[in-house]
């Protein structure tokens, strides 16, 4: 495949790091991805050339910065296929995006006894906000079970739907199992019952083509830092029809039209949901990341990562005496596994000594760990800059781990 891996790796200075005297092999992309020079430079350009508080300023820097910020929104909108850029709200990340919906949709549309459906493979960020809502408003939380193969039990999903169901909130790609959920089907079923759907896209946008218009989802959440962009910035896509009706989440500058002590009217979308000075530098950095991906070509990246995934899966399988979590063929670019008889913490610790970074533990998905009765997994998650020789290093590292255990 014609994939400029050399050039790409050169864009990520961090990859030349040595860890414990060994070249860094970074397979913790599911936790956070690294940032190419282009992203750092875009943010540096803001700081050194036109940094200024956006909106409402009459001076030149303020106008330049506002324009760059709104262009960033446009870039993100077209990246995820949003109808309108005012349906793109900048947040701190997926977690805040979900909390925003849980609060504002919850306050506006949910009554005690209404039901929200999530799944058994959700990240804590798509569990706890609903539990907080449950506590505050008496909303009922229902959970789609996870099958042994790491897929959702769609039969049970259908049966969970009732006349009180108001929202379904599920992850697009599981951060533990890699499972790509059939969200088209979930959305279709939900919409047949007039139920809104929120998709947690934290692990999806970096590995799959996402088109919210085609998906027809009501909300879509993502994090910049998992998409080769900056920390502290994320996105909530929401359909205008919902966002317009929803009560604001936070109050403050920019999200208002007029304020008096008697009555305050709110600004139009997206500003209604962006209280306070937004992280315009982060948003511009995120847009630079999106452009970086688009420049390489999303399809190319996805194909490359698929190859890498397949290569890694075969090699790991060949190791033997290894248990995989999640089925192989419908996964995003990550593999969760355990070396039989070896605690993931031990494996992770020893791999680190060899310069190899994987994530071990419960991956903020404790209910899923409970489900599989394991303390955690070893997760290798791939990014666009990883290579097959890095996979080899991982496999060799695991062999060494085994040796150490005698």
């Amino acid at each position: 495949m014609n994939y400029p891996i050399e050039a790409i790796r050169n864009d990520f200075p961090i990859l030349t790091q040595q860890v414990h005297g060994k070249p860094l092999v970074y397979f913790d992309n599911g936790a956070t991805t690294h940032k190419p020079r282009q992203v750092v430079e875009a943010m540096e350009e803001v700081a050194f050339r036109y940094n200024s508080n956006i909106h409402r300023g009459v001076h030149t820097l303020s106008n330049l910065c506002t324009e760059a910020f709104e262009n960033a929104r446009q870039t993100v909108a077209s990246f995820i296929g949003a109808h309108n850029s005012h349906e793109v709200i900048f947040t701190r990340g997926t977690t805040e995006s979900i909390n925003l919906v849980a609060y504002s949709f919850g306050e506006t549309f949910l009554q005690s006894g209404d039901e929200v459906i999530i799944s058994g493979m959700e990240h804590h960020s798509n569990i706890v906000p609903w539990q907080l809502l449950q506590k505050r408003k008496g909303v009922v939380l229902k959970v789609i079970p996870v099958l042994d193969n790491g897929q959702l039990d769609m039969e049970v999903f259908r049966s969970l739907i009732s006349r009180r169901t108001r929202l379904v909130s599920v992850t697009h790609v599981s951060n533990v199992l890699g499972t790509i959920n059939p969200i088209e089907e979930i959305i279709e079923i939900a919409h047949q019952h007039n139920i809104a759907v929120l998709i947690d896209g934290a692990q999806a946008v970096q590995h799959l083509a996402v088109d919210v218009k085609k998906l027809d989802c009501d909300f879509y959440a993502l994090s910049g830092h998992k998409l080769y962009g900056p920390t502290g910035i994320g996105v909530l896509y929401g359909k205008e029809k919902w966002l317009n009706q929803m009560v604001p989440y936070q109050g403050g500058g920019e999200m208002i039209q007029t304020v008096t002590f008697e009555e305050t009217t709110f600004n139009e979308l997206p500003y209604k949901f962006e209280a306070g000075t937004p992280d315009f530098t982060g948003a511009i950095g995120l847009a630079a990341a999106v452009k970086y991906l688009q420049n390489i070509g999303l399809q190319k990246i996805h194909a490359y990562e698929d190859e890498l995934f397949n290569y890694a899966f075969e090699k790991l399988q060949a190791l033997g005496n290894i248990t995989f979590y999640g089925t192989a063929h419908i996964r995003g670019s990550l593999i969760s596994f355990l070396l039989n008889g070896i605690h993931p913490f031990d494996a992770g610790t020893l791999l680190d000594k060899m310069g190899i970074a994987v994530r071990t533990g419960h991956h903020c998905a404790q209910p899923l760990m409970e489900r599989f009765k394991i303390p955690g997994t070893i997760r290798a998650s791939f990014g666009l800059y990883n290579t097959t020789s890095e996979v080899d290093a991982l496999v060799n590292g695991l062999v060494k781990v085994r040796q150490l255990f005698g």
Partner: protein
Amino acid sequence: MTIQEVQQEIVDEFGMLTDWMDKYSLLIELGNDLDGFDEAQRTDQNLIEGCQSKVWLHAWLNNGQIQFMADSDAIIVKGIVALLIRVLNNRTPDEILQSELFFVDKIGLKEHLSPTRSNGLVSMIKQMRLFALAYKAKMEK
């Protein structure tokens, strides 16, 4: 003169002014010369609230042509308002709807029509077109 021609005329007038100071002097002059609203006319109904400045706009139909009256609390905005009125006043709804406003751009005042400028001008132009649409519908009935 057509809308096109009036716009060209304005572009020519401003074209002679190379210095921004001269341009803005002229705008301020135009703003000062435009008859404003008296307090009673500055109603909430006429108000277009920008975040930085306010614009008031009033329109009525006269022999199939739309007449505009407008005002702003900021003089530069009022100067641009005066130009907009000069271009669009006494036009049929169709003329207004088919027109394309290029002069603001051409005379170097584009920034004032940025949606983030929030001086009320973008909304004012939108409102002028809406009036044209509304009167067109009325006349067709």
